[in-house]
């Protein structure tokens, strides 16, 4: 049950199987005199789906930016598959999906997916498992036939799916997603949630998914990482033990509602 994790508050959670995808050891991030993340200890188990919840200003996005080498740690250590964040970035170990799709508007859907393969060719950035076929990826995210569409010709949900396909093209072992469906309507969001779970099962990648929706966090996550604000710290990691594979009707079950209620109460104490 979820209460069993209560005692683990603030302590690193070690998981026996799967190995570690990312490890944060007493990692801190400061912006000037403001401490966004304060001595955060966290271990992300490889192959799992993590959702990250917390009140605004708790450093959810900052944590993803720290892991993805966009911002440096002021103190502590961050490692990804045993490498530093910079080494992992250069080896394309992880990919990032932004809240707005961040597609290049002059490139077609297919050309946007191919972008990561065009960059760094001279420096021989090599992808150990080899790149995936961009056309197949667009098919995987349900955009077959729209390869040549420009971003402005696609809906918000479609643009985000192109961004996901682009993130998957280098076969990342870790996928970082910063509120990717935050700007979409609820129906599109629910559909993309299901699609994302399919992709996760198909690719076996580790996913760190930041959201501000409790139900999205419960529906997607095997584990929900709850952060607290001022300064950003780990509040609790909650295991979501719901039947797999998850389907839409799961949202109507009492277990689902109980997890949501539990997280809502927890969020209020953050």
């Amino acid at each position: 049950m979820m209460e069993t994790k209560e005692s683990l508050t603030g302590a690193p959670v070690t998981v026996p199987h799967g190995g570690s995808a990312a490890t944060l050891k007493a990692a801190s991030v400061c912006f000037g005199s403001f401490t966004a993340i304060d001595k955060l200890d966290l271990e992300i188990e490889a192959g799992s789906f993590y959702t990250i919840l917390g009140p605004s200003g708790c450093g959810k996005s900052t944590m993803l930016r720290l892991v993805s080498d966009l911002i440096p740690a002021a103190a502590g250590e961050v490692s990804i598959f045993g490498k530093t964040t910079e080494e992992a970035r250069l080896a394309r170990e992880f990919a990032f999906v932004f809240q707005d799709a961040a597609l290049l508007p002059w490139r077609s859907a297919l050309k946007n997916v191919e972008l990561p393969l065009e960059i760094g060719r001279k420096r021989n950035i090599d992808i150990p498992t080899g790149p995936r076929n961009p056309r197949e990826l667009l098919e995987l995210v349900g955009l077959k036939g729209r390869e040549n569409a420009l971003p402005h010709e696609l809906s918000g949900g479609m643009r985000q799916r192109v961004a996901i396909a682009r993130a998957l093209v280098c076969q990342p072992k870790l996928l970082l997603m910063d509120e990717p469906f935050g700007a979409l309507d609820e129906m599109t969001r629910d559909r993309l949630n299901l699609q994302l779970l399919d992709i996760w099962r198909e690719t076996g990648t580790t996913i760190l998914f930041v959201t501000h929706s409790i139900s999205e966090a419960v529906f997607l996550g095997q584990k929900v990482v709850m952060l607290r604000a001022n300064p950003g710290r780990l509040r609790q990691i909650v295991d979501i033990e719901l039947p797999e594979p998850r389907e839409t009707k799961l949202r109507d079950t009492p277990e689902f509602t109980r997890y949501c209620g539990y997280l809502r109460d927890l969020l209020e104490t953050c």
Partner: protein
Amino acid sequence: MAVVETVSVPDPVADARAAARREKTMTAAVPIATAAALILLWEVGVRGFGVPTYIAPAPSAVAATFVDKFPVLMQNFWPTFVESVAGFAVGNLAAILIAVTFVHSRHMERAFFPIAVFVNTIPILAIAPVLVLILGPGITAKVVIAALICFFPTLVNMVRGLQSVSPQTLELARILSASKSEIFWKMRLPSSLPFLFSALKISATTSVIGAIVGEWVGADLGLGALIIDATFNFNSPLLYATVFMSSGLSVLMFALVTLAERRIVRW
């Protein structure tokens, strides 16, 4: 009874199409009709009030001169055309290159942007004689004047355009470990194109003004020289015909840039 009836079945699609066609015809017809009416009013006014030709010629007189003097007009058109196009190319190219250095070096921008602003504040009519004195009465001075007038709008727009890449796109570049040149060619430069074309549309018409101003100061041939010549000889129909020729050149340049923009900026 052999009554033949033609039953017209209402076809909403055809009706909508016909309406769209009517709408299209109207959007073209209204401005054309307005212009024609104004020209007619001008003709009637000049004739009705007996305005002397050297003060304001009737449109019919201008049209007649345009046809009669067409070889002369064309003879003066080509030098201005060449100067405008050369000035357009030189001025914009310089502006683009300088914008690129500004975006890559804050020091360069701090050092040279105030100078660019200062040069821009000098009235083109004041700097034209200076340039003709330095560069002589040949084509060079006119090209430089046309280039100078194109330079500033493009510089300002291009700097903005190159900086218009969204922060998330730059984060994406960082996550992909893109090099500076990859960011420039794949992200900054394409992002700047809509801004560049806004500037090019401005300079398409101002480059013609620059060339003509240069010709005023000292030239034997060119639309600017013809304007001065016609003015001093009180040959108003020729003056008006030359003015139309000049604006025709501007429209041509503008149309070419717009055409290029439609083909290149498709997003």
